[in-house]
C-alpha cells in the first residue's frame, strides 16, 4: 500500500516537473508549426493531402533532401573529428590561456551568417588569399562554413563531460598495462559517448537547418530543405510544398533522434564529483595538439579577417567604424544606434538564458531519473526527443506559425515582448538539455540513495550529489544559451519590432544600405557582438566555484 502510494507520488512529481516545459513547448512550438503545416494540408479549408504527397514525388525535392542529409552528415563528422581532440587539448591539458581560447571558440556561434559570408568570401573568394583552394561556390565551401559555426558545440559539450570524467578507471587500465590508445578506446571513449552523440546530433540539426551559410557560400547553386522552405513560404507562398518539406524535415529529425537515443544509451557512474586537474602537456599529445591548432586556424582566420576589416577605413587603420556605433549610420540607416541594439540584445539574451536554463533543468531532471518500468522509460525517451525538435524545424515555419496561431485569446501572444526571448530560448533549450543530461545521467544513483541513507534530507542529497556534478555543465550550458540567443537571427528577424532590434538584425540592416560607412559599421558591430560573447563566456567560466583540492 505504502509502496504503491510512493510510486504514485513519484509519478505525480515527475509529471508536475515536466508540465511547465511541455506546456511552453506546446504553445510556442507545436501549435505554430502544426498551424503552418495544417495550412498546407487544408489548402482551401478542405483536407487535401494529395497536393502535399505530389510535392514529395518531385525529383527536385529528392535532390534537395539528399544534399541536405549528406552535407550535414559530412559537416557533423568533420566537426566531431576536429572537435574531440580540441576538447581534449582545451579541457584536459594545461595550456596557457586556454580559457580565453575556449571563450573565443564560441564566437562563430553568434556571428550572423551574412557577416560570416563576408568573412569567408574575403578569405576564399576571388580576391582572397585562399582563393586557390577553390572553395567558393562549392559544397565543400558550405561544409567548411558549417564546421566553422558548429565545432564549438562539440568542443564544449565533450570538453565539459571530459573534465568531470572519473579518471580512475583509465588510470587503473593503464596500471594494468593498457596502452594510451587502449585506454582511450576501451575506457574514455565509451564514457564520453553520451556527450559525443549528444553534441553530434545537435550539430547535425544545426547544419540541416542552416540557411544563410548555404546561400552565401553555395552561391545559390545548392538548395537544402531549409532554403527551399524559405523560398516556398516567403516568395512563392506555396504552403502545400512548404508543408511537405516541413513534414519531411520532421521525419528526418525524428529518425535521427531515434538513432541518437539508441547510440547514446548511457553507461552510469561515469561522472566524477570533482574536476580533474589539467595535465602537463606530453609528447604523445602532439597529434591532438596539431588537430587543435588546425581547428583554431579554421575558426581564427575568418574572425581575424573580420577584425582587420572592421579596423580599416579607406585602406588605412582606424577606429572610426567603432566610433560610429553610437550613431545611426550613413543617412540614418538605423532607427536606433548599434549601442542601443546591444542593450536590447543583452537583455533578450539574459531572458532567453534563464528561460532555457529553467526549462532545460526541469527536462534534464525528468529525463534522467531512473525509470522503474519499460513504459516509464519510453515516456522519458519521448520527452527527451521532444525538446530537441525546435532545432530541427525551419525558423521560417515557426516565425510564420507564430503569426497565424498566437493571434487570439487566450493565446494572443504574437505582440508580446517576451516572444523573442522565448523563441530564442527554444533554440537554446536543446543545447542546455544535451549538455546537462549526459552528466546527470552519469551520476550513480546509488550516491543519492547513499546520501539519503546516511540521513541527508532530499535537499541536502541534491546539494551534495547532483549540484557539484552539474555545476560546471550548467555554466557551460548557460554560456551556450546566451551565445545562441545573442546570435539568433532566423526566428528573431520574423518577430523583432523595429524600435527594439537586436544586434544581428541591425547588422543585417547596415549591410542592406549603401554607403561605405554602413559596411564598416556592420563589420565593427559584428566584432562587438563577437567580443561581447567572448567576454560573457570568460566571465561565466570565471564564476566557477573553485573546487578545493583541484588545482
Amino acid at each position, binding site marked *: 500500500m505504502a509502496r504503491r502510494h510512493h510510486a504514485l507520488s*513519484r509519478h505525480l*512529481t515527475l509529471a508536475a516537473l515536466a508540465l511547465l516545459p511541455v506546456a511552453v513547448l506546446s504553445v510556442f512550438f507545436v501549435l505554430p508549426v502544426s498551424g503552418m503545416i495544417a495550412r498546407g494540408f487544408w489548402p482551401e479549408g478542405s483536407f487535401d493531402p494529395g497536393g502535399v504527397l505530389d510535392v514529395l514525388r518531385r525529383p527536385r525535392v529528392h535532390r534537395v533532401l539528399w544534399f541536405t542529409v549528406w552535407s550535414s552528415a559530412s559537416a557533423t563528422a568533420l566537426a566531431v573529428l576536429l572537435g574531440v581532440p580540441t576538447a581534449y587539448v582545451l579541457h584536459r591539458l594545461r595550456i596557457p590561456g586556454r580559457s580565453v581560447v575556449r571563450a573565443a571558440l564560441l564566437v562563430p556561434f553568434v556571428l550572423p551568417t*551574412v557577416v560570416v559570408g*563576408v568573412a569567408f*568570401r574575403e578569405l576564399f*573568394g*576571388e580576391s582572397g588569399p585562399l582563393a586557390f583552394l577553390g572553395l567558393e561556390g562549392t559544397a565543400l565551401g558550405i561544409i567548411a562554413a558549417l564546421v566553422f559555426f558548429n565545432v564549438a558545440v562539440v568542443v564544449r559539450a565533450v570538453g565539459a563531460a571530459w573534465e568531470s570524467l572519473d579518471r580512475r578507471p583509465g588510470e587503473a587500465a593503464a596500471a594494468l598495462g593498457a596502452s594510451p590508445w587502449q585506454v582511450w578506446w576501451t575506457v574514455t571513449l565509451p564514457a564520453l559517448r553520451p556527450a559525443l552523440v549528444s553534441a553530434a546530433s545537435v550539430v547535425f540539426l544545426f547544419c540541416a537547418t542552416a540557411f544563410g551559410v548555404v546561400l552565401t557560400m553555395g*552561391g*545559390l*547553386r545548392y538548395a537544402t530543405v531549409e532554403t527551399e522552405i*524559405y*523560398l516556398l513560404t*516567403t516568395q512563392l*507562398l506555396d504552403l502545400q510544398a512548404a508543408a511537405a518539406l516541413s513534414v519531411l524535415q520532421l521525419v528526418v529529425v525524428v529518425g535521427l533522434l531515434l538513432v541518437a537515443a539508441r547510440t547514446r544509451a548511457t553507461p552510469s557512474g561515469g561522472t*566524477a564529483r*570533482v574536476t580533474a586537474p589539467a595535465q602537463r602537456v606530453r609528447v604523445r599529445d602532439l597529434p591532438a595538439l596539431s588537430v587543435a591548432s588546425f581547428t583554431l586556424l579554421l575558426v581564427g582566420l575568418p574572425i581575424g579577417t573580420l577584425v582587420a576589416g572592421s579596423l580599416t577605413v579607406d585602406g588605412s587603420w582606424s577606429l572610426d567604424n567603432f566610433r560610429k556605433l553610437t550613431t545611426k549610420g550613413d543617412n540614418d540607416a538605423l*532607427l536606433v544606434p548599434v549601442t542601443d541594439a546591444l542593450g*536590447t540584445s543583452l*537583455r533578450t539574451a*539574459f*531572458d532567453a538564458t*534563464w528561460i532555457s536554463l529553467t526549462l532545460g*533543468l*526541469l527536462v534534464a*531532471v525528468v529525463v534522467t*531519473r*531512473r525509470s522503474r518500468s519499460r513504459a516509464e522509460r519510453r515516456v522519458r525517451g519521448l520527452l527527451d526527443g521532444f525538446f530537441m525538435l525546435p532545432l530541427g524545424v525551419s525558423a521560417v515555419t515557426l516565425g*510564420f506559425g507564430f*503569426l*497565424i496561431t498566437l493571434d487570439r485569446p487566450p493565446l494572443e501572444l504574437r505582440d508580446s*515582448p*517576451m516572444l523573442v526571448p522565448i523563441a530564442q530560448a527554444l533554440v537554446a533549450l536543446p543545447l542546455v538539455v544535451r549538455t546537462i543530461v549526459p552528466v546527470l545521467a552519469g551520476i550513480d544513483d*546509488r*550516491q*543519492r*540513495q*547513499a*546520501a*539519503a*541513507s*546516511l540521513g541527508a*534530507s*532530499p535537499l541536502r*542529497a*541534491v*546539494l551534495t550529489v547532483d*549540484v*557539484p556534478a552539474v555545476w560546471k555543465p550548467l555554466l557551460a550550458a548557460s554560456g551556450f544559451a546566451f551565445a545562441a540567443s545573442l546570435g539568433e537571427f532566423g526566428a528573431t528577424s520574423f518577430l523583432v519590432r*523595429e*524600435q527594439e532590434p537586436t544586434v544581428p538584425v541591425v547588422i543585417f540592416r547596415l549591410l*542592406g*544600405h549603401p554607403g*561605405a560607412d*554602413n*559596411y564598416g559599421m556592420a563589420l565593427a558591430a559584428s566584432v562587438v557582438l563577437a567580443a561581447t560573447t567572448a567576454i560573457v563566456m570568460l566571465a561565466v567560466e570565471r*564564476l566557477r*566555484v573553485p*573546487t*578545493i*583540492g583541484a588545482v
Partner: protein
Amino acid sequence: MLRVRLSSTHGAADPPNLIRLAPAKGVTMYHPARALAALASLALTGSLLGCSTMGGDDDKSADESGSGSTTVKLVTHDSFALPEDLQAKFEKDSGLQLEILASGDAGAVTNKLVLTKDSPIGDVAFGVDNTFASRPVDEGVFEEYAAKLPAGADQYVLEDIGDHLTPIDNANVCVNIDTGYFEKLKLPEPETLDDLAKPVYRGRFVVPGAATSSPGMAFLLTTIAEYGDDWPAYWAKLMDNDTLLVDGWESAYQGEFSQGGGKGKRPIVLSYDTSPAFTVDEAGTSSTTKALLHTCFPQTEYAGVLAGADNPEGARALIDFLLSPEVQAALPDSMYVFPVDENVELPATWAKFAVQPTDPHTVDPAEIAENREQWLTEWRDVTTR
C-alpha cells in the same frame, strides 16, 4: 529563482535508500552553498542591472494598453526607415501612437499579410511592391482607400488594383557599373543587357538571385520583358559568361562590387538607379558609379489599409502622412527611393547623380502573379547546374 528550482526539483524525486559507497579517496567536499550563492547573485545582478526585457517593457505596455484607436500599427519590411522627428510629428498631429512592425523583405511581408488576412497583424501595410501587388489584393488583404494623391503620383496607380493600394515611392532596379574601372582598362562601358553576355565582360558581372532577392527578381523580369520567351537562352549566355550569382543585394553590392563596402573584384553589379548618389566623392562633384538606363525595371512601393484593422481611421491617417510633402522629401535620404510627389525637391546629389530611366521595362503585375513560380523554376534550372 534558479535557486528554488534547483533544490525543489531534485529533492522531490529522491529515490529510496540503498547502500552507499564510501567517498573516493582524495576527493574533497564541495561547497554547495557557495555555488548557490554565486548563482543567486548572478540572477540578482542580472535583474538589478535591468538585464531583462520584461522590466523595460512594463512602462511601455502601460501606455499602449488603451484600445485599438489610440495606436496605429504599421506592418512593413526591414528596409523601412523614417526620421524620428517625422514619426514624432505624426504622433503629435494625429494623437496616435505609431507602432512599427518591420521584418523580412517585400515578399515575406506580402505573404505574411496574406496568411494573416483573417486576423491582421496591424492596421496599415507599407512596402508591397508592383511585383507582389496582385496576390494580396486578390486575396482581399486590403480595404479600399482613395487617398488624395500628390501631383505626379497618378502614373504609379496600378490598373485593376486602384484604390486598394496607394503609391508612396518608386525606384528602378538597374545594372550599375564602376566607371573608373573601365576607364583605367580602356574598355568600353557596357550599356545594354546584350552587352553583359559579351566575352569582353566575362567574369565581371555580379547579380543577386531571383529566388532570394527582390531586386534579383526584378532583374529576371527585366530580361523577360526584353527577350520574351527567349529569356532562358539569355540567362544561359549570362551564366556561360561567368556571371556571379549571389544570395542578396548585400552580397552583390557590398561584397563583390568593386565600388561597394567590401571592395570586391567585379565592376558590374545589379543595384538601383539611386545607387550612384551614394558613391559621390567628398566634394560632391562626381560619382564613381553609374546606372545603365537600358537595363531598368521600376519598383513602386505601395501602402494600404488592412481589411479588418482595429484602427482603419488611423491607417488612413498614416497613408495621408506618408504622402505628405515632409515625408516625401525625406524618402531619398531615409529609404534611397524617389518620392511619387513630383513637386518635392530632391537632395542636391540626387538631382545630379540619381538619373532615372525614361522608358524602363515593365511586366504586368497579374502576369507576374500568374507566372512567378513557373519563371522561378525555369530560372533555377538554367542557373543551377
